[in-house]
């Protein structure tokens, strides 16, 4: 019973974190057709920024929205002055550019922060825990879960219910028709990368709260995000959510039952299984389809 609850809570936390990371990643992939490797660096930037803001006296929970706002701007600018040049080019160009960008940003992080893990001392109100049926659930985990699920709901609402969201979906479906109704496609691209980076920033900030910020965190979580995207496929909010669900549950199952060492194997195994048994993805939509 106790282990079941622990697995359940661990799953929820991972599902929330993976969702926001993968939603952002899938968004830029779906709309711009760019496989953004620098998503990892955005996650890392989010982690460091939250850490820096906290070290300069900001409450960590206020640091998260501030981090998101900053990353939105970073994404917007990187889109406008960098990615915009490769959007209409071949896929490999986008991958090469964002891979390079990822390396540069990680290099900068190593230079300024060293490879040391930087963690945040939680304020008193985040330090306690509740005991539910023997499973220990810390306050900080509860808060992170809530923030992640709230952000996921916001993304769904924005994409599904607002005109700008519809304009983003329309641009993804037919760029030229979008122009014909008067949508500024370039601005939609800026907005898309802005939102994507903002979500990556949130993920990074929350991870910094939970564990720590480090130069390696980006690549580590980019891998999880990639796995989630392969599992769930593109083209909807539901895809990344489903992928997050599957990876989140299986990872927490394995790490609780056999130990955290094996949990890193989970994602790779799942991806292999999906690619062999159902190459079109769990929902029948290939992850590589734009």
């Amino acid at each position, binding site marked *: 019973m106790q282990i079941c609850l622990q697995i359940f809570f661990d799953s929820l936390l991972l599902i929330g974190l993976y969702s926001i990371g993968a939603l952002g990643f899938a968004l830029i992939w779906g709309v711009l057709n760019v496989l953004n490797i620098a998503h990892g660096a955005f996650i890392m930037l989010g982690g460091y920024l939250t850490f820096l803001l906290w070290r300069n006296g900001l409450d960590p929970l206020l640091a998260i929205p501030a981090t998101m706002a900053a990353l939105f701007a970073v994404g917007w600018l990187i889109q406008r002055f960098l990615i915009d040049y490769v959007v209409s080019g071949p896929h490999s160009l986008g991958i090469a550019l964002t891979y390079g960008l990822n390396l540069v940003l990680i290099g900068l992080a190593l230079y300024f922060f060293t490879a040391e893990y930087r963690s945040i001392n939680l304020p008193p109100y985040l330090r306690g825990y509740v005991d539910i049926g023997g499973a220990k659930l810390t306050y900080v985990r509860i808060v992170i879960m809530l923030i992640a699920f709230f952000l996921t709901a916001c993304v769904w609402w924005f994409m599904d219910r607002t*005109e700008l969201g*519809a*304009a983003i979906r329309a641009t993804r*479906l037919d760029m030229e028709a979008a122009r014909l109704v008067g949508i500024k496609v370039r601005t939609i691209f800026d907005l898309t990368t802005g939102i994507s980076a903002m979500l990556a920033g949130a993920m990074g900030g929350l991870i910094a709260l939970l564990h720590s910020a480090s130069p390696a965190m980006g690549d580590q979580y980019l891998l999880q995000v990639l796995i989630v995207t392969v599992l769930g496929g593109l083209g909807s909010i539901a895809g990344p959510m489903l992928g997050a669900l599957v990876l989140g549950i299986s990872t927490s199952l394995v790490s609780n039952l056999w130990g955290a060492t094996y949990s890193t194997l989970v994602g790779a195994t799942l991806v292999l299984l999906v690619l062999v048994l159902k190459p079109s993805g769990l929902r029948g939509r290939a992850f590589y389809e734009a």
Partner: protein
Amino acid sequence: MGASPVSPGAPDASALLSVRGLDGGHGPIQVLADISFDVREGEVMAIIGANGAGKTTLLRILSGLIQPMRGSIRFAGREIAGSSSDEIVGLGLCQAPEGRRLFSGLTVEENLRLGSFRRRDKSRRVVADALDQVFAYFPRLAERRGQLAGTMSGGEQQMCAIGRALMAGPRLLAIDELSLGLAPVIVEELVAILYDIHEAGTTVLLVEQDVSVALGVADRALVMQSGKIVLQSSPDELLADDAIIKSYLGG
């Protein structure tokens, strides 16, 4: 014969759309050469011509999807050659493009509402009124408002494409290939609705392969061949002269 060759000269200030000396194409490949014509406020102008004559290229340039190489396009008193497509839509030149180009994964209503994206006044009431107006023209769209646009029949998709263009409140509605791939009954229905739209005060620029459809609705017609306008005339004169139809349109 009454059909006269086109004489360019200065833009006609009284025309809603006035094109002069327009050259354009795809990348370095020139398709259109020295295109000049006017569309007056309140008329239906048809553009006919065989496959590959450059009709779609012309409309794409008018909508700002491709930049012209040379020449002037005045619309509603503004020079729009070189303007971006969103500015052009904002001025009221809207297009139902060749192949419909609906947002297939979005619902009919979402498609239509996006048609209002560039409206300056996007208050709930204005958009709702525009939507009601479109549904009044095309009641079948109202029945299918929640359906994914890509799953509708060709005729319904054409209605949705025209409706989407109407949602912007256009001064000039350009339609590329109204009848393409549609059964004659549906075409008749669409033509009847096009009359209503025109009656309500919208100027129409209709590109059409089917000569009888085009000349049936138009006040005036342009005949294009190999990227040039070769004739400009009233439909009656064109219809009366079989030789013209045969030589320029191949049938």
